[in-house]
């Protein structure tokens, strides 16, 4: 996990005078699953296009393995990419599409590779229907197969779950985790934080072309978990009461004055009462609860009036 394989240094992409991505800084380490989250038009696809070498940054630099990418196209070679719609010839079958690409890659055992891949993404290798007759979800699956064909080290998926049925979402999610377990580094975008929360190890929240926040899975979990935050004079003195009298087992001492309690059954009133009986004054106590979605909306300032 210590290899930084991709680094964005102040990357900006302008379309005419409008910045699609502005001053993006991000480090991606080997083996990570990075979730890029943003609303429509936030700049997710543009960001991924720059990382995969499809469009060039207007300013800023991309580094791969600590070396500048400019002029070194070969860095992009190890990437499998699915951005926006999968690039497929509509008038030939899935197999033929993959075959064309396999020829371009110079693969030798094309037939077995392609059949294996199609099965992997849940498509029938024997299906000779033209791709234009495919449903959106089937195209999306085929797009993932296309991205995987060159056996990449880095997989870039732009909203891969779009158009998939619940069954498909679970399958693709499992596939992503499986691939990640074999060592692939994965970048995946979505406009739903919840959707990525089950797989990503790191999140980059992008808003109007700028990173609002880059946060690890652990940090995010911490911020979004449900807990009671208790503030007292001396946290040490409160712990025996919490443990013995209230039978609280899941808690964390954050600092000398603050304790987080994770037990769900406990009531705030109970805690205050019990602590007071043992002569411990509570300075403040509150239930903290924030859904992933709320968290995301807050970062992207579109929550409007919140009532909680």
């Amino acid at each position, binding site marked *: 996990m210590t290899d930084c394989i991709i680094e964005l240094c102040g990357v900006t992409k302008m379309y005419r005078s409008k910045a699609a991505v502005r001053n993006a800084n991000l480090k991606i380490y080997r083996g990570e699953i990075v979730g890029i989250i943003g609303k429509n038009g936030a700049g997710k696809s543009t960001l991924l296009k720059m990382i995969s070498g499809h469009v060039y940054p207007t300013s800023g630099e991309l580094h791969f393995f600590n070396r500048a990418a400019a002029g070194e196209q070969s860095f992009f070679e190890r990437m499998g990419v699915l951005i926006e719609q999968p*690039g497929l010839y509509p008038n030939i079958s899935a197999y033929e599409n993959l075959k064309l690409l396999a020829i371009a890659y110079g693969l030798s055992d094309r037939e077995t590779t392609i059949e294996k891949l199609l099965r992997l993404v849940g498509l029938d290798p024997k299906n000779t229907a033209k791709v234009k007759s495919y449903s959106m979800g089937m195209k999306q699956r085929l797009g993932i197969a296309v991205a995987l064909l060159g056996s990449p080290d880095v997989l870039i998926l732009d909203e891969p779950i779009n158009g998939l049925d619940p069954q498909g979402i679970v399958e693709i999610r499992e596939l992503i985790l499986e691939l990640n377990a074999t060592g692939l580094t994965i970048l995946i975008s979505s406009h739903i934080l919840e959707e990525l929360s089950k797989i990503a190890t790191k999140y980059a929240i992008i808003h109007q072309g700028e990173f609002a926040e880059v946060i690890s899975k652990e940090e995010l979990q911490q911020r979004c978990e449900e807990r009671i935050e208790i503030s007292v004079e001396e946290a040490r003195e409160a712990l025996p009461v919490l443990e013995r009298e209230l039978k609280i087992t899941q808690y964390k001492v954050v600092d000398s004055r603050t304790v987080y309690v994770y037990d769900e059954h406990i009531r705030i009133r109970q805690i205050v009462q019990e602590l007071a009986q043992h002569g411990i004054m509570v300075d403040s106590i509150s239930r903290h609860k924030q859904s992933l979605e709320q968290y995301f909306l807050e970062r992207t300032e579109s929550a409007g009036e919140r009532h909680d």
Partner: protein
Amino acid sequence: MINLLRMDFYRFTRNKIMYLLLLLFCAFQIFGIYMMKQYAQPVEEGGVQIGNLTEIDFIQYTISQPPSWMLIYIAVFTIYFYMSEWNSGFHKNYISMRQARIHSVFSKMAILALFVAMLFLTMLIADGIGRRMFFDQTDMGDPGTLIILLASQFLLHWAFSLLVLCIAMMTKNLLISLSAGFVLALNVIGMVLGALENQFTGTHLTQYLLINTLVRVKDLGNMADLIHTFGVAVAAILILSYLAVRYKIREDLN
């Protein structure tokens, strides 16, 4: 490079449009010869009858008659071959490979050369059939001269296909590039510029324009004329391929 070329070749051999174009071209070429027979003026310019022309002169004659149908077929195929890939977005799947941007342009150029060659072959066959059927004429002319003519016309037509390729790449639009292809095939621009030049400057620079060179009846025995013809073809090919590669390298694939 080789792999991308293989891929493009695979696609080339499996698309019906290519065969359809060649078939249409062949049919219309033979039909054209039939029409020449039907409506042949008794005496052509210079007192030569079409029926008496050798294949060399016949090619010179047909290519110099606007509109050049070959150019139109070439434009249609070039735009089809490039735009079908572009519009599908398939190129994005392999463009991250090493040097793929450069190689994909070279591979397209090679396929276009192949198509132009096949078009010429079709023309020879159609001419052979048509002239035999309607004029009972099989004289090919001097083989060496014929080869020089075919070689020069091949290069000029290939250069034209690269011109259309550049237009398709840069406009990324089927209708615009098709219209541009037709206008170029009719040589509207070349003729207008030529007329203007004649009118105002008295120079003859426009004769070095690609399509003006292409449609001009060539004096194949004349060294200066050959240098002019091959010079224009080679220069156009070099310039256009440079432009295409340069454009592709910098292009944003949105």
